[in-house]
């Protein structure tokens, strides 16, 4: 194909626009990383910059000197994220599958039962009272998992996907004498990997980035999530030290301006966000594919 000169020019312009946009997207990442490797005094004097005015590893030394709080938050967050992901995918699929059965009595009622929760909700206050005063899930790891397992959006997305599985396959399983449990676990689930992967990833991501559950329901420092630890460090660096009973004498550090405040915060942000940012882009195609799968209404 021969390209006209004007189309080459317009391609250059369009690509330039997007590349500038990509730079704007990347800039804050580099800024935080750059600041985390800057010497505290240089940062205060010259301000935040991508390229450290004076490079230093002090901030990371400070963060890793007592990594117990960070490691614990990583552990807690990983555990509840995996629990939420596995249970959410399984339970939502378990209710989505019956909804594909057009012959099932009460199917419309069950659908409406789920739909209605998308229209109306009690909101934060009644949920808070329910969870803390009646179910007593606060200050347990279950508060990160159980209240957030079932979302109607996900169920309807799954239902749409399940309904697209050729009926002939399921019919033949019935004829072979398979019961519903068997069909669900050995046929529906294995044939629905794309949608299950999408729901699993979005659920995991949501859990991994969860900060408000800790803020609402957790008083016990050993149970706070990674993002909430980061949020608290913004206000108060001592959180890093308080969470551990180790006999580090921080009083000598605290009064001095020796605590690299700004740079430690940025180093913490890198330590908290870094690993996820390395891992998640690998799964990006599932996210993008899921959006197009999910846009079909069932």
């Amino acid at each position, binding site marked *: 194909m021969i390209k006209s000169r004007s189309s080459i020019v*317009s*391609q250059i312009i*369009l*690509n330039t626009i997007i590349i500038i*946009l*990509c730079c704007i997207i990347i800039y*804050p990442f580099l*800024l935080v990383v750059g600041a985390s490797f800057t010497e505290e005094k240089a940062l205060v004097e010259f*301000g*935040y910059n991508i390229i450290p005015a004076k490079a230093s590893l002090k901030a990371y030394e400070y963060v890793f000197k007592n990594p117990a709080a960070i490691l614990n938050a990583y552990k807690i967050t990983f555990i509840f994220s995996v629990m939420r992901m596995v249970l959410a995918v399984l*339970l939502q699929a*378990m*209710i989505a599958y019956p*909804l594909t*059965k057009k*012959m*099932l009595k009460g199917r419309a009622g069950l659908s409406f*039962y*789920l*739909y209605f*929760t998308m*229209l*109306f*909700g*009690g*909101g*934060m*206050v*009644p*949920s808070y*009272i*329910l969870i803390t*005063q009646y179910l007593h899930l606060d200050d347990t790891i279950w508060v990160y998992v159980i209240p957030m*397992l*079932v979302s*109607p959006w996900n*169920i309807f997305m799954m239902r749409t996907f399940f309904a697209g599985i050729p*009926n002939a396959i399921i*019919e033949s399983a*019935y*004829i072979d004498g398979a*019961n*519903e449990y068997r069909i*669900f676990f050995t046929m529906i689930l294995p044939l629905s990997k794309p949608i299950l992967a999408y729901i699993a990833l979005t659920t995991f991501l949501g859990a991994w*980035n969860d*900060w408000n559950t800790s803020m*609402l329901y957790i008083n016990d420092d050993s149970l706070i999530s990674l993002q*909430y630890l980061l949020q608290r460090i*913004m206000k108060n660096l001592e959180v890093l030290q308080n969470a551990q009973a180790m006999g580090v004498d921080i009083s000598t550090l605290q009064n001095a301006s020796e605590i690299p405040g700004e740079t430690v915060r*940025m180093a913490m*942000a890198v330590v*908290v966000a870094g690993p996820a*940012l390395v891992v998640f*882009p690998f799964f*990006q195609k599932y*996210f*993008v594919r899921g*959006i*197009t799968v999910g846009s079909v*209404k069932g």
Partner: protein
Amino acid sequence: MAKSNDVAVKPRKKGKGINGTNTIQLYSLAAIPAFLVFVFSYIPMFGIIIAFKNYRFDTGIFNSPWVGLDNLKVFLASDDFARIAYNTISMNLLFMLVGTTCAVLLAVVLFEITARKAVKTYQTILITPNFLSWVVVGYMGYAILHPTSGVANSIIQMFGGKPINWYAEPGYWPWILTIASEWKGVGMSSVVYYASLMGIDASLFEAAKIDGANRLQVAWHITIPQLVPVIVVLSILRVGNIFRGDFGLFYQMSRNVADLYETTDVMDTYIFRVMRIFGDFSLSSAAGLMQSVVGFITVVVTNFIVKFIDPEKSLF
């Protein structure tokens, strides 16, 4: 569904539906998730009655005294209500306007780029902020807006301007929040538009080319009109949620600084603060009731409208 239903009816075993479906087994699968929906969605709905009570922890919901509409009256008469209602609605409208425009423009520009491999790379970069929590984005905002060492003030000073104390000036925040929201979300929201552009019949473009239309004319007369139904539906659905604010955006970006409440306090941050920090269940539950009821009305009305435009996209 299956055509075989029309075939002669065979005697069935008890509990078995047509085609061998087993009602009891199917319901047993749905039981646990349905129960969780009841506990975590339906019970809180009844819990909104606390807006009409003087809720006390020691007496519980049922034994707390009724106060009728007092809580609502206090909330509606307060300065808070006017402020947070205005902020929530105006910010949502701003996000909707700017968000839709940016997402559509981005999708069109990406669509116009012929090097598909480059587009993939661009999309990967543009979507990345979506994987961050608002806490981390709040840190990035802090590095830019820090009053003495932030990048924004460095740039202002470089051009001879006076540094701005960002975290004390509420006037700038509607725009700061809009930029933050776009920075994080524009890549992901353009994916929907990009996908629908990829679905446009190629013969339309060829016909336009034969008629001698240039790229801009094609974009304006063919590409964008093809998106209009999606834009309309997504916008209306967003109006349905106009009384809900993104808690993370407003809370983390503004660092919950009280000086900024004038423009950054929305329904969700207000309810959280009044309930969890001040422990005032009367006021917070009244605000929560307002949000639930207004939210219900807007969602139902907007869906009703969407149903007329495009039944496929409506919720019910």
